[in-house]
């Protein structure tokens, strides 16, 4: 490895700064009392508290899953804070927002003020656990779109929340989903009414800021008949030494002819070069294509977190419904990623496409784990899966664990997977054209990921390409 490349390899996490503002925290640990306090803090109705308590009691009986290809010291759930919020009252407008907070967002390049308008993005920015500023609410409400913090939805649209919350990811689905159901602090709620095409891309930026605070986001997006929405989620987290737990649940519901596009750029703190610190990201994301000809599309660029455990999935119930999963997962240093998707085909003529690109460098482990299941009812179902892995350096691991199950003879499934290293010839070609080695690698990696990156909305595609380069620089030599 050349000296200049070593310098880049040692590059610090760019977004590693913390914001000193007053935080309000509950005592350490988890108990029924904490669950009650979270619920009370949010002025939740009794049914919501009941739901949380049920989830909490269920969680106590469950065991942490151990099947993923990740290693970490046991998590002590009594040594985490389950609620943290900026101490000041909820601001009414941007002017009321803590200026320190705004500066943080500025450093992260979030278009929260005028830039938001120019970018045409409505931002429901989550700072730790409470949504502190929401813009574009008016424009959205004119078209009938509900876009608000989920805690607000619980109060103002209880009939919708009651109907859909937990209907895609049941409380008992898995250990982390149960935990989230008990203690979720905030997140986004989106409802697109019949026939409405959401007038702008919706986006929420999640930040993890307070020390030792688990983030338990809960997102629920419903697209009614003929509605469509594109939702963006992007993350960067300030640098911290302790491992921080993040266990989010995202539920999507698409009715007849509805379309939901969910895009994620995840760049949480991955820990330092020795594997110290970093976020534990245990996320349950699932979409239900309930209606006929509905479509749910997941696109993710995962470059951050010490550990990623995440399988955005589609349950294709409606006839003719479509599920898509486009993923780039990059791991470097000591990062561990175990990610993939599940496509469950129930309806007739359902289609799913999986494109997964894994890149491992340093001493990291990167696993694709996916399930394609065709049930007997899914006549004419179709799946195409392509999983490619790229290895950079011989101390990392790349793993592919697909499960393919078909119970219908009229279904057609194709699966392809490859693992290789960066082609020396391609590298040589680029360098012979005067590109530096790291630029050449960046270019080749971006080419490798092109099929996924092109699925991202414009604003994200640019950020994602930069992220890939930053995540990998210095890993070649």
């Amino acid at each position, binding site marked *: 490895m050349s000296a200049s490349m070593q310098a880049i390899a040692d590059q610090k996490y760019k977004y590693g700064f913390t914001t000193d503002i007053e935080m309000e925290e509950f005592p350490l640990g988890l108990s029924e009392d904490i669950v009650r306090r979270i619920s009370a803090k949010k002025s939740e109705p009794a049914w919501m508290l009941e739901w949380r308590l049920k989830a909490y009691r269920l969680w106590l009986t469950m065991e942490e899953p151990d099947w993923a290809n990740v290693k970490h010291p046991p998590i002590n759930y009594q040594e985490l804070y389950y609620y943290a919020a900026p101490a000041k009252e909820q601001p009414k407008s941007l002017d009321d927002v803590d200026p320190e907070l705004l500066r943080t967002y500025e450093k992260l390049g979030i278009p929260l003020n005028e830039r938001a308008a120019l970018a045409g993005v409505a931002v429901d920015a989550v700072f730790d656990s409470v949504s502190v500023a929401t813009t574009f609410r008016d424009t959205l409400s004119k078209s009938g779109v509900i876009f608000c913090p989920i805690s607000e939805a619980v109060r103002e649209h209880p009939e919708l929340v009651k109907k859909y919350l937990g209907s895609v990811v049941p409380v008992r689905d898995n250990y982390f989903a149960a935990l989230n159901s008990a203690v979720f602090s905030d997140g986004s709620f989106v409802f697109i009414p019949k026939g409405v095409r959401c007038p702008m891309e919706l986006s929420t930026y999640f930040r993890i800021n307070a020390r030792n605070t688990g983030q338990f986001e809960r997102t629920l997006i419903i697209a009614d008949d003929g509605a469509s929405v594109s939702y963006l989620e992007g993350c960067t987290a300030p640098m911290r030494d302790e491992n921080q737990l993040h266990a989010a649940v995202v539920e999507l519901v698409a009715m007849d002819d509805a379309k939901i596009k969910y895009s994620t750029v995840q760049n949480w703190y991955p820990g330092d070069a020795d594997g110290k610190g970093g976020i534990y990201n245990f996320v349950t994301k699932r979409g239900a294509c309930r209606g006929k000809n509905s479509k749910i599309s997941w696109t993710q660029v995962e470059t951050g977190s010490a550990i990623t455990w995440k399988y955005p999935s589609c349950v294709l119930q409606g006839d003719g419904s479509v599920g898509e999963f486009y993923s780039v997962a990059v791991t470097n240093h000591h990062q561990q990623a175990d990610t993939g998707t599940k496509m469950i085909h129930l309806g007739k003529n359902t289609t799913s496409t999986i494109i997964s690109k894994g890149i491992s460098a340093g001493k990291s482990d990167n696993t694709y784990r996916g399930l394609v299941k065709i049930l007997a009812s899914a006549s004419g179902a179709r799946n195409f899966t392509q999983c490619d892995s790229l290895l950079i350096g011989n*101390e990392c691991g790349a*793993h592919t664990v697909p499960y393919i199950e078909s119970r219908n003879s009229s279904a*057609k499934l194709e*699966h392809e997977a*490859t693992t290789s290293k960066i082609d020396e010839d391609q590298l040589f070609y680029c360098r012979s054209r005067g590109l530096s080695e790291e630029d050449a690698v960046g270019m080749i990696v971006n080419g490798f990921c092109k099929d996924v990156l092109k699925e991202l909305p414009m604003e994200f595609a640019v950020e994602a390409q930069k992220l890939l380069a930053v995540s990998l620089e210095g890993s070649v030599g």
Partner: protein
Amino acid sequence: MTALPSKKLEAWRYTDLAPLSEISFGAVPVAVAPVLPESDLPRLVFLNGVFSEVLSSRLDFAGAFDAVADASAQPLARINAEQARDGVTLTIPDGIDAGTVLLISHASGDAPFAFHLRHRVALGQGASLTIVDIAKGDGVYWHNPVTDITLAAGAKLNHYRLQDESREAFSLATIRAHIEAGAAYEHFTATIGARLSRTEIHASLAGEQATAHLNAAQMLTGEQHGDFTTVIAHKAPNCPSRQTVKSVLSGLSRGVFQGRIEVDRIAQKTDGYQMSQALLLSPHAEMDIKPELRIYADDVKCSHGATIGALDEDQVFYLRSRGIPEAEARSILVRAFLDDALAPVQQEEAKALFEAAIENWWVSQ
């Protein structure tokens, strides 16, 4: 006795041995003389799990069974070690081409019984051998053979298996091969018989240029369950491995293929390829595939492909438009579909045996 593996074990998620555990197996009955295949090849015959000197050829490289201890991770191999009473030990000295030998197991009885053959095959440097392993039978029984293979540098073993056991039987075969530098293990299994069967192969490529080809054709019908599971461990640089697994499923049958390629840190320049394809001929057949790559070296080329679908009606139509009747057109296409898996079987007699078995299976459909 070691417990049977449960479905909770990842390696057994698709094959449930509950039906096996429900049966109580009694004493091994006295065997009746079976009809053996007509062949001039030397043969080693086991009847109900017991070596038959009368029916077997005398081979100077064939030794007697010897008890074994087994502390491996495979529960079935441990059960075998506890229960094994017979088996064959084939030792081929350096540089010797021992030709082809038939290894025949025939089982039949009125009441359920079990037998656990333990075979050992060791080839010296540059030695070569072809084993044609045929398993047949009638009635309810559990055949749980383990074959341990060591191939010294440059040795070559062709191992062809026809699993045509009783449709009421359980057949759970474990094969473990240690392959040294430049040695080659060529494997083909045709799975036609048994109510529930599994072939589990662990091939370890321990020296440079060691190769493993693990192929299989599964042809299942009725309520049969067939499982072909492989683990190829690349433990040395420059080793190629190939796998081609074809499944043709009709009735309510269920086919399983689990194939894992493991590449150690030092196994640079590994070239691993795996293809698994399944044809579902009936609306209620099921195929489960789990191809897996576990890779720790960077300068490698590993890939796998998997497809599941019905016979291509366009191809059927093409053949029919050339005047070929529909039934025959389907037969041609199925036969062609299986061909890739069968291709490495070069020994004439073995090839004819498999061709006939496939033909028989198709006709019986």
